[in-house]
């Protein structure tokens, strides 16, 4: 009886550990991209086009002879930066909205109806529409994705705020003469950190996928900027001659998104003793 449970918990921990390690490696590669990949990611060499992986080109080259390894490593900078900015923006905006809606009852209905309306659109469709309005660029992609994911965070934060605001300690700090704004930011917000942290990791993962999707559809980042999405999008028609042109950037997307999701799951289980017991 005891063994499988322990084993399962260990496995669980191991998955979290492996995910964290994968993300760490990707992050280090992205941050130190010029060190780890000395070939310019935009250097074209027509004679070297669509070369299979070799010692010279670790992951092969694409249709313009650009080094795929270098492009993935440099592309990680853009892909991760877009995802990180999206997660950050959505979490900040969603937290503010959710706190306001949950704490000030008068704001609740108007704010949450807007949130509901935004959530009634499929994520990618809304993002496409927004980019179409704003025009495709790096900044606008982030902006569109922030707008898409903000309602999701706002809902979670609002629900948690509704629970925390009713706890007696809120009344107790009020009885100590603490002003409302301080109660909101200093006392209630820290109590919401675990659901917010979980949202950060999930949105990070969704944003990587969404950016890739948008770029693939040609409405995301302009094709001259190497992101994992633009790489798959640009090279897709050569996939039947040289599978590596889509396989490697695709794998980068999958590994990163999967690791983030698993990490998010792990963090959630770790922070929620009720879920941990049930699992």
């Amino acid at each position: 009886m005891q063994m499988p449970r322990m084993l399962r918990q260990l496995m669980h921990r191991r998955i979290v550990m492996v995910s964290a390690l994968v993300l760490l490696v990707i992050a280090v590669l992205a941050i130190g991209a010029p060190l780890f990949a000395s070939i310019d990611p935009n250097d074209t060499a027509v004679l070297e086009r669509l070369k299979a992986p070799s010692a010279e080109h670790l992951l092969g080259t694409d249709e313009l002879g650009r080094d795929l390894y270098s492009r993935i490593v440099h592309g990680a900078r853009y892909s991760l930066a877009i995802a990180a900015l999206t997660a950050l923006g959505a979490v900040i905006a969603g937290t503010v909205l959710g706190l306001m809606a949950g704490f000030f009852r008068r704001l609740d209905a108007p704010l949450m109806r807007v949130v509901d309306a935004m959530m009634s659109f499929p994520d990618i469709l809304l993002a496409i529409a927004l980019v179409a309005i704003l025009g495709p660029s790096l900044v606008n992609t982030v902006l569109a994705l922030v707008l898409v994911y903000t309602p999701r965070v706002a809902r979670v934060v609002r629900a948690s705020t509704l629970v925390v605001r009713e706890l007696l300690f809120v009344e107790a700090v009020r009885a100590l003469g603490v002003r409302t704004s301080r109660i909101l930011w200093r006392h209630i917000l820290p109590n919401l950190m675990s659901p917010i942290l979980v949202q950060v990791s999930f949105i990070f993962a969704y944003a990587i996928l969404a950016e890739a999707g948008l770029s693939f559809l040609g409405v995301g980042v302009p094709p001259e900027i190497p992101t994992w999405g633009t790489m798959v999008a640009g090279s897709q028609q050569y996939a039947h001659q040289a599978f590596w042109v889509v396989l490697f950037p695709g794998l980068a997307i999958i590994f990163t998104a999967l690791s983030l999701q698993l990490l998010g799951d792990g963090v959630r289980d770790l922070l929620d003793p009720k879920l941990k017991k049930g699992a």
Partner: protein
Amino acid sequence: MTTANNNQTPRLTVSNLSTSFPTEDGLVRSVADVSFSIQPGKTTALVGESGSGKSVTSLTLMRLLPKTANAQVSGSASFVTREGKTLDLLQIGEREMRSLRGNQLSMIFQEPMTSLNPVFTIGEQIAESVRLHKGLDRKAALAHAQRMLELVEIPAAAQRIHEYPHQLSGGMRQRAMIALAMACDPTLLIADEPTTALDVTIQAQILELMRRLQAETGMSILFITHNLGVVAHHADDVVVMYSGRVVESAPVRPLFAQPEHPYTQGLLACLPGKARQPGQPKPKRLFAIRGQVSSPLAPPPGCAFEPRCDLALAECSAAMPPLLDIRQGRQARCVRVQPDQTLARAA
């Protein structure tokens, strides 16, 4: 012996306090025409069953009723500050009220388990209040927090200030709550059933602690409880509330010796000690007041206690009897009580 008749100005004088809440089914008068006072360094107990308006009274005084409740408050509450200024707690601005809360006016709550913020250490929470009101820096505030924990007899205070609420037991948490409430040396402490959630031995310790702190600091206490045993030991004056109204108020000894209002008599008869008469081997069945509190939406036309009263007369259901002065420092709201002519004056 009697404490209500000394000549000091009371720390807090509440007159004709009423709090009503508009609901979909009409206006609910939770507190109606309540008057009492608390002397400096003394304890006034507010006694009554659930729903009698005790907690609403305290929240009204602290101005902590939720805005969404749209409470309608009338009456006055004159509070004498440390500096000797007299303020009406119900009239002053929110800013001024906030500077009093936690500083001169403190409150401790019934549930020590949830009245501390779970994500901050005990020390940080006490320090916050001190920094807010006394303007101490972080280090001085934490040192003060440690002294406060020592004052409320929490062992190993130097380590406890770095611990989180979940690491403390219920009794320890209530001590920490008291330390938090006492941190700025308040002149009036409102204790809303501070021992109800604790087991009996811890209750006694907490009450003893509060008594000691009161003796040391000279603060006044408004003690809200339904526990008459606690009242007998710790209060100087008692205000008995029923259905939002004061039905009897008196210094503690005369009240227990000779309760005037049938409700007070009933409450005292409910105590287990009363069931066992001296000289009788078999205890009687424990007395209980029959019936239950009438709905605040449909109060009886006369005395609120009349439907449950064993001594009710015909006139009881006609009109609400006034709160009459009966003897020195004593008042009761019952048609059977004869006012003392020599003392009679408007309450």
